[in-house]
């Protein structure tokens, strides 16, 4: 059974939020860190508490820590050594593996995220911007009570118009696919791959291979915890729109090209099920919008190019051990909306995303290193993920078309990594244990 009273809500639920803020903290002393954590504890909701209060709740808080943060809170060296190497090293040290090179390199990241002094993240989600301001002030007050805690940086996130569905700055409908976890109460939607063993995402439970193995110690700290990769990905909306205009003559051709890059129409309708024409009702219908596969339904990529974003990050029936590489996705857009008819204004906007999993190296890093950035994925030869792959203008994107495929060369980078970090997101008992000094 899943311990829904102990697992932080964000692992199994999305808050009904239109605004939020992530704060990145440093503790100058273990005592200050623990005192601050004690003061924050009552705001952190378990899955069960969140579900019970969702109708009335106005804000949702998640706490997570870097490896240096666990040390800063006083976790002893013997315990710290039991955490996996990639987590101990941190995201910036893994840049070559993740494809964070060139403009994406950690040297260019913002927000002090690469410093070992980055210890904790506070994720605040609220129903609206007004609430955010209120709770942001409350959190500032708590920090002020413990002057040895320091705010390194923060980022505000907000939904962008139109507000009736979740989407990113490029206009793609998002939050359609979620792994459904055994014991969570969630039912998988048709086609999305069945219930997954909880140990793929939450420490201390059986995973797709069997009973839990090699947990960090002590078990009290590890149990019901998870790892969280943070990615601040800037979206170059002007460049993206220019690209569509350059390679598509009519608005319809541009829409189709946008769909080919993603594997879904911007409405969310999957290309496998709607290959020629958009079908917004299909995109919005969870009973139908994941009910497809690739190897069987579209082996040559005539509907979804082999290198399209969603065909790379979840190849479905076209990959081995698929269930060992799934991730839970959370996050939101940041920065101002760029209206359809407005020129690029040079302001930073993008998605501030979290990928949650039980093993960063096997899930998140695998997705980055192999699925997103392997130039020869699916024998493509000279491609990377057109949305999030490391692009330097020398790669291409191939669109299988009868009789002859279309090949777009010199693909620009539509996104740039602006920051990132690895966090451990403890269960509630573990948070109490940390606050009490272990």
């Amino acid at each position: 059974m899943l311990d829904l009273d102990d697992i932080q809500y964000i692992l199994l639920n999305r808050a009904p939020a239109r605004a939020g803020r992530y704060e990145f903290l440093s503790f100058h002393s273990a005592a200050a860190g623990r005192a601050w954590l004690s003061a924050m504890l009552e705001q952190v909701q378990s899955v069960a508490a969140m579900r019970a209060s969702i109708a009335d709740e106005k804000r949702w808080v998640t706490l997570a820590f870097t490896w240096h943060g666990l040390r800063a809170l006083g976790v002893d060296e013997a315990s710290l050594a039991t955490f996996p190497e990639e987590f101990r090293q941190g995201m910036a040290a893994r840049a070559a593996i993740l494809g964070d090179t060139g403009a994406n390199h950690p040297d260019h990241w913002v927000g002090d995220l690469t410093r070992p002094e980055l210890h904790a993240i506070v994720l605040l989600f609220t129903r609206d911007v007004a609430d955010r301001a209120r709770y942001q002030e409350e959190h500032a007050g708590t920090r002020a009570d413990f002057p040895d805690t320091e705010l390194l940086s923060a980022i505000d996130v907000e939904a962008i118009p139109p507000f009736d569905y979740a989407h990113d700055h490029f206009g793609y409908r998002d939050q359609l696919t979620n792994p459904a976890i055994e014991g969570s109460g969630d039912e998988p939607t048709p086609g999305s791959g069945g219930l997954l063993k909880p140990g793929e995402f939450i420490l201390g439970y059986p995973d797709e291979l069997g009973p839990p193995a090699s947990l960090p110690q002590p078990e009290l700290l590890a149990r019901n915890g998870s790892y969280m990769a943070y990615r601040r990905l800037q979206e170059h909306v002007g460049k993206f729109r220019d690209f569509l205009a350059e390679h598509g003559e009519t608005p319809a051709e541009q829409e189709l090209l946008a769909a080919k890059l993603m594997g879904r129409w911007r409405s969310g309708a999957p290309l496998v099920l709607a290959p020629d024409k958009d079908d917004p009702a299909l995109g919005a219908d969870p009973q139908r919008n994941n009910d497809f596969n690739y190897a069987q339904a579209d082996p040559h990529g005539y509907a979804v190019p082999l290198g399209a974003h969603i065909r790379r990050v979840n190849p479905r029936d076209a990959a081995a051990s698929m269930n060992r590489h799934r991730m839970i996705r959370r996050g939101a857009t940041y920065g101002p909306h760029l209206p359809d008819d407005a020129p690029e204004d040079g302001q930073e906007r993008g998605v501030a995303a979290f990928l949650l999993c039980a093993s960063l190296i096997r899930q998140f890093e695998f997705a980055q290193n192999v699925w997103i950035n392997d130039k020869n994925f699916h024998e493509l030869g000279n491609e990377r993920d057109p949305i999030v792959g490391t692009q330097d203008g020398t790669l291409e994107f191939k669109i299988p078309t009868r009789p002859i495929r279309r090949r777009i060369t010199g693909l620009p980078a539509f996104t740039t990594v602006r920051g990132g970090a690895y966090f451990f997101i403890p269960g509630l008992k573990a948070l109490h244990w940390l606050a009490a000094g272990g």
Partner: protein
Amino acid sequence: MAIPEGGFFPDDVEYGRYGPIFPKTPACYGFTIVAKIIPGREEVFREHGRTLEKAIKEQPHLLAPLQLHYLRWVLFEIEGATYFMYQGIFDTDFDKYTEDAVDLFSQSGISTVFENLEGFPADWKTNPAAFVEFVRAHHRPSFLEYGEYPYVSADEIKKSLRVKFLLSDILDQMQ
């Protein structure tokens, strides 16, 4: 392609999740693992050969996820001790699909004959890092590799054969 000592071109090393990646050559990616076997286990190796043969008969695409060209299993002796050489030619560097390979061998009941090698980690099924470390420690990089059809992937070869068969089919229809 002549390869520097150590197996890497120092100015052009790509990093995988478990460390630097051995370069692609005209003979694609691959490894040559040489390790001493636990004395007296020769017959286990030969039995493994029969098990794997049977598994492939039942499931011809069992090893497809590994993106292989060839695998060769060899036993040989040096000064009374038996050694095992395992040579694989792949289209992808081994590092990328390590966990998938480990999963494949732990689930399909064929396990791995590596368990009969000296120093192989007992927890290999749940500890891919230890598995990789063993492989890396026992891999002998080539100093020279050649390919008669350089850089061609197994998939391209299979596609070409399909085209050839289709063509001969078409020609049959014209008789």
